[in-house]
């Protein structure tokens, strides 16, 4: 197992370097002058231009520019947002909890619904229930999720008037950000109704964001289960006189989980991509919306820093998934 992990870690090095190169090049390939892109100042005197040029180090040879950028990145300096004049890192960590909260809720929904659905479908393979569940999952799989979000708003907010359309919490509450996770902060604040309001705001975006991962998890659980239920060791388990519940819920599921965990890990990227749309639709103040807004505002340093940050997070998570996989798969343990 140690071998697997160290190999994966080694393979990450060139990838990391590549990601830094991409984000370094980003500012230099966008249309327009990098000085303007980095400073956001449009009208300036030539003196000011030279001054900025020097400040950003753009007067240095390219490779020196790169190494100085690499140094900045390693020391945790991801640039400064034009719009807010704050370091990107700071900005990022203010907004990141909102995205994490939303994504975790979505992932939680996807797992607790997706796995049982996949199992039921596998057990009833070819029967009406299976066809029904897989039919619905196909709809979910093909759903443009921004449209799905709009439909939810039309129905639950517009027609029924049950749930709020945007934001993380009703504006009447002022919650001090202790952890950044409103579910926790609202409980800590002790304000009456704050927690409920948080839940109500979380519901629609949570459902919308969970849709694709849920469907993928359900389908993969089903196909893994179908295959496993045909295995010899399942027959052995029945031959031991075990109940169906135990055979399916323990012997089969344990094997299926090895596959499903990998699938769940792969959903992280999908979740972050989905968060971009979901957050835009529900005005959710997370990094997805922030990235889109930054692109709209031509806040290129923010986009550059955000891109780098997000890819680092994706890579870290992928690594953790590989690690978990190695941990739960006895064949890789030794």
């Amino acid at each position, binding site marked *: 197992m140690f071998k697997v992990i160290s190999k994966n870690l080694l393979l990450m090095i060139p990838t990391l370097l590549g990601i830094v190169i991409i984000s370094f090049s980003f500012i230099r390939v966008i249309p327009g002058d990098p000085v303007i892109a980095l400073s956001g100042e449009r009208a300036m005197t030539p003196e000011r231009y030279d001054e900025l040029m020097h400040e950003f180090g753009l007067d240095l040879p390219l490779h020196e520019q790169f190494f100085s950028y690499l140094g900045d990145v390693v020391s945790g300096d991801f640039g400064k947002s034009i719009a807010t004049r704050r370091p990107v890192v700071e900005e990022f960590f203010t907004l990141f909890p909102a995205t994490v909260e939303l994504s975790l809720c979505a992932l939680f929904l996807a797992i607790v619904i997706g796995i049982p659905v996949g199992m039921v479908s596998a057990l009833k393979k070819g029967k009406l229930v299976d066809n029904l569940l897989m039919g619905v999952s196909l709809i979910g799989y093909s759903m443009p999720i921004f449209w799905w979000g709009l439909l939810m708003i039309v129905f639950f907010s517009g027609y029924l008037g049950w749930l709020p359309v945007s934001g993380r919490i009703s504006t009447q509450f002022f919650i001090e950000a202790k952890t950044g996770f409103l579910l926790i902060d609202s409980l800590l604040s002790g304000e009456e109704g704050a927690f409920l309001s948080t839940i109500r705001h979380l519901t629609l975006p949570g459902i919308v964001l969970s849709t694709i991962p849920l469907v993928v998890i359900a389908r993969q659980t089903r196909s893994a289960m179908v295959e496993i239920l045909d295995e*010899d060791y399942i*027959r052995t388990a029945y*031959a*031991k*006189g*075990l109940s169906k519940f135990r055979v399916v819920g323990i012997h089969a599921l344990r094997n299926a989980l090895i596959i499903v965990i990998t699938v769940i890990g792969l959903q992280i990227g999908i979740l972050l991509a989905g968060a971009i749309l979901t957050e835009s639709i529900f005005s959710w103040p997370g990094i997805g919306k922030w990235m889109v807004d930054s692109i709209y505002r031509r806040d290129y340093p923010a986009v550059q820093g955000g891109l780098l940050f997000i890819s680092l997070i994706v890579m870290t998570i992928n690594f953790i998934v590989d690690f978990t996989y190695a941990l739960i798969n006895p064949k890789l343990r030794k």
Partner: protein
Amino acid sequence: MLRIRNLSVYFQTIKGTFAAVNNFDLDLKQGEIVSIVGESGSGKSVCMLALMGLLSKNSIIKYDEISFEGKNILQLKDSQRRSYLGAKMSMIFQEPISSLNPCFRVGDQVAEVFRFHQGDSKKAAQDKTIDLFTQVGIADAKHRYRDYPHQLSGGMNQRVMIAMAIALKPKVLIADEPTTALDVTIQAQILNLLNDIRDKYNMALILITHDMGVVAMMADRVVTLYRGQQVEISDKEQLFSNPKHPYTVDLLASLPEEAKGKRLNSITGVIPPLHEIFTGCIYAPRCKFAVPECQKPIKMKSAGKNHLYRCIR
């Protein structure tokens, strides 16, 4: 103790429904070893899986009588039937490695039998398992307990399977080609182990095999199966000295003294596919002695005490 009359098993497939086993009869007494022999695909496994109620859903089982200690186990309620499986009647499978769950420690898989059937505590089940491992010849049982199937050799896995099957001292043990997947040297060890266990617990053993060598070494009685049909049932001595059915003769002929233990492969031709319908003798197409008469339905004939065969000769 175990009595089967007229057991037939059908499979529903896209190509239609066909019989994999026809009118299978069996009587089993305590302590006895009955061997079921036949080529690959003759329905040996299907027959026993039907008895255990372990066949896939696309199967249809028909029978006149199945009784185990006077009870029809296939008609029991699910929970009652399960109390027999793995406890009074258990089975060892063809492929030891794929028959063990790759995700669980082999020890825990065996201990599960104690825990599930007897409600033993984790510790008690563990101790019993380690004890059992030693009995079936697993050295260093304590450490092997914690291994996963892929870490053990085929022979070791088969010992684990045997431990699992005999954990609760069953009345009937079905061993489905327990040595086919193993090295020749290991084969003899496993067979000896089975024999010892049978002596010790006085249980009945149904031994499925391809291998006439194994039959010669182990069996009291022999059932020869050809494409789902019993063609000869006899005591071992009689079968070896006076085989009646041409198929049995051919099987025995494929066992020259020096080739003992090898898979039989010298009969020409292959088993006709299951969807082909026969009215007469199924072996006729491959039989040296086939005559037009063979196309008529053929009944079992007696050739002396405890010796039946299905042939017009």
